[in-house]
């Protein structure tokens, strides 16, 4: 039997989910293998390098650049505190005095008599890395990360905006403050504005309008690589742009998560090393761990059309021709023949379906 390969998004009410919580070299690991953790528990504490700032010290003192070293009252490598005088100069027999003070706590990284500049590095900033999943620590690798595993529900979206959020999932219309809100249809501009104003931390929607998203963000977003934006909440879109309803299977799995705590991530990367946004919550539905379907599409596989007039329609592959066929654009492509849920049979380019 011919088997072809098409990309697919994971939608499962119960499966093993593993997530590596990346940590840099030198991070303090707070958990051990076998520890049971909650999504909000910290698993590592990291000291991120503080920002560096270049101070135009010679210019501030009104002295030649080449005289900066003589004016310095600290030297390279010294620790300084905010407000501390680091360089001093005087003119007119001491009548005019000027100083340069450290703008923040840090370390003198360099002093240059050529540029007349001082480089100051701030003290490292501590941050904590959360477990993200309610699960068990499976591995700990210094400089790499902490791997957490959970039996959970997992829904991958097609596109997201913003970083991670962990909160209770509620339906649209419920009190959204501090919650993640779900709507199965298109999230309009008004809905998104209202959620932002009322303090929702996340929104899961079937679709959004491209223009609405630009309006909300106040700028065009780089859709190919997201995760760091701040539009007021984290957004996960399951279907795409336009007026598209959430696929029934996706809506069904998410329905089982309403009322409970979920973790979401808006990070999306559509280039090499693809990353899709996701919603992870407690496992529900049938007991045991659901097997993922074998990769690939064969005759009989249920697929979803993801482009063109039949976008969003579900069907079953009835034939996989070996040779390219003519398609509606006038070109030729490898195709699937798909019988839709209304028994109508259509020919679809292979890249335009997902499982």
């Amino acid at each position, binding site marked *: 039997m011919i088997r072809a390969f098409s990309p697919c998004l994971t939608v499962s009410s119960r499966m093993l989910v593993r997530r590596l919580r990346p940590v840099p070299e030198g991070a303090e690991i707070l958990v051990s293998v076998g520890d049971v953790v909650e999504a909000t528990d910290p698993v590592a504490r990291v000291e991120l390098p503080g920002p560096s700032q*270049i101070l135009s010290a010679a210019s501030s003192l009104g002295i030649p650049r080449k005289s900066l070293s003589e004016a310095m009252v600290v030297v390279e490598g010294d620790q300084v505190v905010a407000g501390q005088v680091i360089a001093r100069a005087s003119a007119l027999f001491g009548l005019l005095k000027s100083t340069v003070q450290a703008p923040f706590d840090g370390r003198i990284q360099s002093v240059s008599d050529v540029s007349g500049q001082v480089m100051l590095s701030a003290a490292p900033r501590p941050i904590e890395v959360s477990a993200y999943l309610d699960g068990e620590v499976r591995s700990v690798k210094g400089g790499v990360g902490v791997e957490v595993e959970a039996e959970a529900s997992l829904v991958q979206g097609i596109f997201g905006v913003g970083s991670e959020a962990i909160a209770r999932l509620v339906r649209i219309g419920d009190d959204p403050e501090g919650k993640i809100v779900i709507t199965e249809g298109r999230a309009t501009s008004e809905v998104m504005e209202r959620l932002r104003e009322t303090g929702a931390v996340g929104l899961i929607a079937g679709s959004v309008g491209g223009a609405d998203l630009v309006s909300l963000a106040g700028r065009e977003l*780089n859709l190919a690589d997201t995760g760091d934006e701040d539009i007021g909440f984290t957004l996960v879109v399951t279907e795409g742009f336009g007026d598209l309803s959430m696929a029934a299977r996706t809506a069904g799995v998410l329905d089982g998560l309403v009322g409970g705590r979920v973790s979401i991530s808006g990070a999306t990367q559509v280039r090499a090393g693809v990353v899709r946004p996701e919603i992870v919550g407690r496992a529900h539905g049938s007991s045991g761990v659901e097997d993922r379907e074998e990769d690939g599409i064969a005759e009989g596989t249920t697929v979803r059309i993801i*482009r*063109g007039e039949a976008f969003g329609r579900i069907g079953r592959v009835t034939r996989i021709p070996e040779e390219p066929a003519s398609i*509606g654009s006038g*070109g030729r492509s490898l195709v699937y023949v798909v019988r839709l849920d209304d028994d109508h049979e259509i020919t679809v380019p292979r890249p335009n379906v997902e499982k």
Partner: protein
Amino acid sequence: MIGADASVIVITDCGSTTTKAILIEEVDGVFRQTSRGEAPTTVETPVEDVTRGVIAALRDLSALSGRRIIGDNGEIIRPASGNTGVDLYLSTSSAGGGLQMMVAGVVGSISARSAERAALGAGAIVADVVACDDERSAQRRIDRLKGLRPDMVLLAGGTDGGAQVGVVEMAEMLSAADPKPRFGKGFRLPVIFAGNREVADEVQRIVGGKSDLFVVDNLRPTVDEERIGPAREKIHDLFLDHVMQQAPGFARLVEWTDSPVMPTPSAVGSMLRSLADSEDIAVLCVDIGGATTDIFSVVEGVFNRTVSANLGVSYSAAFVLKESGEENLERWLPFEMDPGRLRDEVMNKTIRPTTIPDSEEGLLVEQALAREALRISLEQHRAFATGLKGTMDKSSGISGFSAGSGQESLVRMASLGLIIGSGGVLSHAPRPAQTAAMLIDAFAPEGITRIAKDSIFMLPHLGVLAGVNGDAARSVLARDCVVDLCTCVAPSGTGKPGSECLEFTLEMDGSVVESGRLALGDVLVVPLAQGREATLTVDPKRGFDVGAGKGRRWSGPVRGGPCGLVFDCRGRPIAWPESRTERVAAMRRWLKAFGAIDVTDAEGTK
């Protein structure tokens, strides 16, 4: 020379997503490309070994050509004997993102620009250019550089014996940002210093503790002299000796090849220079991909290359819309489309980049995106390729310009003899006329210009081959690589729509085969078969110029192609009707004239 007497040659180009292999054989004394194979590139997880993709592509090539290339030991069989083995194996690579660089200079339009040209000419993708006079604060520059993971940095600035302060400031900024190299844990970032040699020691003191510093000749030894050769050669050396050694599997690939692996764009540049030189014409070549668009030009012996990093038709589709604006994109559609729906269509293509259009409407939206990506990329290329005071690169003769603002571009559209298009949206368009129309619409060539395509983007392969066997490379280039689509005749000038633009006669074998009179706004295609040549005489009306001067007769040979001889009398710049309805009607008429769409009823509606 290695490979000069080889008669069976295999070349691979390890691209970001696909590794493409071609087989070149000497047949009856003539080198031809006889077969090709491909396989996914395997530089990323889970495989992380580029040679696995190379082997798979060579096995595909074996299956299609019948030649046994890989031996039982998993290595390339050499030399060729009968239907087994090869005499020469070469490769180019842009896998794993190619060569990614950051460049810095003191003045954006002088040393930073020269550094950027050196990096681009060496085949790099330039992730950012920083200069003391760019609009960002020092802190924002540092923050930006912190987030970059380049393969190497090129630092320039100051003439020899000239300015020092700015150069040291740039070195301090680099030190403060401390960007980490893309590959190799514990590997120190290579930094090439090609600035004022008098501050080389100070630069070493500042960045040497964190990076591996390499000092080469100043690329702007004086204000009016550019010398990018030494910096470019150092970039090549470091790419091979450092970066590629860190990339998964490349050390092994380097051992396999009979000549150094070239960065893909560098190989393209090499081949284009050879082509422009042998035909004595100015050449423009574009490779449009899903994420980026590369443009190469060789004009008056000067090579320029630009990479428009966010202009492409899938991953970068939304960015194209952002840069072009909805109206500019929509004007290329021969039907009306709600702007909100057009935006959603484009954004859906970005987040599902591997889907393909399955309707003519969807196809035309993607081709409109391609036109805008190409148009903006060309604008960027022309702005970059400025040749002003005639300063030449004394070390290589490859580039030349001097600083200033408002300079005229070296790439004048009327001077181009040949435009070559490559990349999926051009190569795989259902009709050759669609490819020709996209290139002509987007680039708006002026005068008489051949329009061609490199259907499988073989220029990189031939570029690396040119370094060891120039005759073989030129033979394959002429016979199998550059495929003529049409010759475009486009008078420059503007006027009142419908006013007289030109008269022409076309002769073959001494007989007039076609003649006509065209008005401003007309597009006409006259059939002229591939490989045929005819003599064209054009009499442009007053105010219009096809290469001999305004209103002056031009006569000369023209070549045919599947799209024949295209008369594009839409004016330069193209004269667009004011109203949206009229624009749609005009675009429908033009596409029909090109043969790019069918129009089946009087209203022009499909």
